[in-house]
C-alpha cells in the first residue's frame, strides 16, 4: 500500500517535470528568437551601410544590395577622402578626441583625488560646487553668450576647455579612490612624496580600472559631439566629421557639387558604375565615423558596464 503510493507519486512528479520541460523548451526557443530579432534590429542598419559602401554603386543605388555585397570595390573609401574639407574634418575630430580626452581624464582624476584629501581647504563646499553643475545649467543661449564673450566661437579651444571637468567623472574617480586604503598614501608621504608624486606614482596606477572607464566615456563624447560645432563654429576649417556628415545629409545639391569638384581631374579612375553618388558619400562617411567606435567598443564594453553601475550606486 505504502509502496504503491510512493510509486504513484513519483510517476506523477516525473510527468509534471517532463511537461514543464516541454513548456520550457518552447519558452526558451521563443525567448531566444525574440532576442535574436532585437539584436538584428540593432545591428542590421550598420551592416546594411557597410555592404552598400563596398558594393557596386549602381546596384546599390537601385536597391539591389541588401544582405550580400555585390561587385565588391573599395574606391568609395578612397574617393571620399578627396572630398573637400573631409580630411580636415577628420583631423579636427581626431585631435579634439585625443587632446580633449587626455585633459578630461587628467583633470577629473586630479580633482577627484584632491576631493578625497581631508585637509583641502573647503573640501565639502568645492565638491558640492562641482557636483551641482550636473543638475543645473543656465540654459543653452546664456551659455552661448558667455562662449561668445570669451571669444571661444570659431576657436578650437571651445571643443576642449568646457569638457575638461565633468562632475560625473569626478564623482566616479572620488568614489574609487576612497576605496584605496589610505595607509598606502600615508606611508608614501612619510617617505617624502609630495601631493603630485603621490597622485602620479600611487593613485593613478591603482585606479587604472576607473581611469579606463572615464577615458572611454570621454573619448566617445568627444568623437560624437555635434551641438558645440553647430552653436560655436561658423568657420568651416573647424568643422568636425559629425558636422560635415550632417551637412552632407541636408544639403544635397551642394553635396553633388562637392562630388563633381572632387572628380574633376581625378587620377583615380572610377568606372561609371562606381562613380560617387550622394548616397554613396553619405554611407561611406557614416561608416568612417562608426568604425572607430565599433573597433574599440567590444574591448571596452565591460568598462562601460562597470562605469554605469558605479555611477548608479552613487547616483
Amino acid at each position, binding site marked *: 500500500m505504502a509502496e504503491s503510493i510512493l510509486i504513484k507519486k513519483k510517476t506523477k512528479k516525473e510527468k509534471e517535470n517532463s511537461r514543464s520541460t516541454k513548456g*520550457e523548451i518552447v519558452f*526558451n526557443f521563443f*525567448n*531566444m528568437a525574440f*532576442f535574436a530579432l*532585437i*539584436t538584428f*534590429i*540593432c545591428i542590421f*542598419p*550598420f551592416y*546594411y551601410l557597410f555592404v552598400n559602401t563596398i558594393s557596386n554603386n549602381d546596384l546599390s543605388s537601385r*536597391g539591389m544590395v541588401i544582405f550580400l555585397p555585390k561587385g565588391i570595390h573599395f574606391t568609395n573609401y578612397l574617393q571620399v577622402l578627396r572630398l573637400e574639407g573631409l580630411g580636415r574634418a577628420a583631423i579636427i575630430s581626431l585631435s579634439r578626441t585625443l587632446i580633449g580626452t587626455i585633459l578630461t581624464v587628467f583633470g577629473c582624476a586630479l*580633482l577627484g583625488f*584632491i576631493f578625497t584629501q581631508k585637509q*583641502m*581647504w*573647503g573640501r565639502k563646499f568645492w565638491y558640492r*560646487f*562641482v557636483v551641482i*553643475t550636473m*543638475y*543645473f*545649467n*543656465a*540654459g*543653452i*543661449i*546664456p551659455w552661448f*553668450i*558667455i562662449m561668445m564673450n*570669451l571669444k571661444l566661437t570659431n576657436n578650437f579651444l571651445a571643443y576642449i*576647455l568646457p569638457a*575638461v*571637468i565633468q562632475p560625473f567623472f569626478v564623482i566616479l574617480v572620488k568614489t574609487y579612490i576612497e576605496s584605496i586604503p589610505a*595607509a598606502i598614501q600615508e*606611508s608614501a608621504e*612619510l617617505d617624502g612624496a609630495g*601631493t603630485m608624486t603621490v597622485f602620479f606614482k600611487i593613485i593613478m596606477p591603482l585606479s587604472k580600472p576607473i581611469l579606463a572607464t572615464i577615458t572611454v566615456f570621454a573619448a566617445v563624447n568627444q568623437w*560624437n559631439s*555635434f*551641438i558645440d560645432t553647430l*552653436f560655436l563654429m561658423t568657420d568651416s576649417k573647424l568643422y568636425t566629421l*559629425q558636422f560635415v*556628415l*550632417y551637412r552632407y*545629409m541636408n544639403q544635397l545639391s551642394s553635396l553633388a557639387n562637392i562630388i563633381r569638384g572632387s572628380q574633376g581631374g581625378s587620377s583615380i579612375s572610377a568606372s561609371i558604375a562606381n562613380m560617387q553618388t550622394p*548616397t554613396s558619400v*553619405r*554611407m561611406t562617411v*557614416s561608416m568612417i565615423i*562608426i568604425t572607430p*567606435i565599433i573597433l574599440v*567598443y567590444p574591448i571596452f*564594453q565591460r568598462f*562601460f*558596464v562597470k562605469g554605469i*553601475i558605479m555611477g*548608479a550606486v552613487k*547616483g
Partner: protein
Amino acid sequence: MSLLSNSAVEKNMDLAPAPLKKEKVKMKKGLQLFLIALPFLILVFVFSYLPLYGWSYAFFNFRPGIPLSQSEFVGFQWFKSIISNPTQTAEVMRVMKNTLAISALGVITSVLPVTFAIFLTEIKASWYKRIVQVLTTLPNFISWVLVYSVAFAIFSTNNGLLNHVLTDLGIIDTGVNYLASDNHTWLSMCMWNVWKTLGWSAIMYLAAITNIDPELYEAAKVDGAGRFRRIWHITVPGLMSTYFVLLLLQIANFINNGMEQYYVFQNAINKDHIEVLDLYVYNIGMLGTNFSFATAISMLKSIVSVFLLFFANKMSKILRGESII
C-alpha cells in the same frame, strides 16, 4: 599591506609630540591642495556658473551686433509676452505640448528595458546573453547624426531600403518619404530613442537582477512556483527600487529632452510636432535672432527643472527615505 600600515602608525607616533608644527604643516598642505584644484574650479565656474550672467539678456531688447550696454532695458516684457501675446502663447503651448508628450512617451517606454533585462536573464546560455548584450548596446554609442544617417539609409524616399523592398513586393507604387512626414512624429521620435538606448538602459537592471538572493528562487521553486510566478513575485519586486530611482530622475528631466535628436530629425514638414523646448530655443534664438526672448524661455526652463528636481528628490525622500541627488 599590514606592514605598510604598521610603519605608518609608528611614524605618526613619532610626530605626535609636536602638535603645533603639525597643524601648520596641515594648513600649508590644505592650501597647496586647493591651489592645485584651483585651475579646474575656475573652469567649472567659467563654463557652468558664469552663463548665469547671460540671464540678464532676458531683460533687454538685445540684437546681435549691438552691445548689451546700448540695448534697451525692457524689464519683464519678454516674460509677460509669453502670456499676453496670443501668437507667442500659442507657440509656447505647442512647444510645451511636444515636450511633455515626448517625455510622457519616454516614461511609458521606461518599462521596456526592465522587460528586456528580465527576459534576457531567463536565457541560460551565457555566450548568447553576452552577444545580445554587446550588440544591443552598440547604438547607444553612436551620435544622433549617425542615427539620422541610418534612418536616411532605411527610410528615405529614393534610396531607402524600406521603399525599395516595398515597391519590389508591389505593396506600394511610389516611394513614401517616412522622414519628411508629420504622421506619428512623437511616436517615431520615441521609438528611435528606444532603439538607441534599450540595451544600454537594461544594463542597470541586469546588474540589479544578479544582486537578488538566489535562495529566494530556490525556495520558490521548492514551493512549486513556475517561471512566470518567480519573475512576478521575486524579480519584479527586486527591481522596483532601481526602477523607481530612474523614474524619478526621468521626471526631474521631464522638460530637458535635449535638442540633438530633434534637431537632426527636424524638417519643414514635421517641425510643428518635433519642436521641443530646447530646439525651440535654438530655432528662435540662433536662427530667428530673437535672442532675448530665447534667453527668457531658456531661463524659465532652467528654473522649472530645478523645481522638478527638488520635487523628485522630495518624493524619493518621502517614499523611500533616501534622496536621489
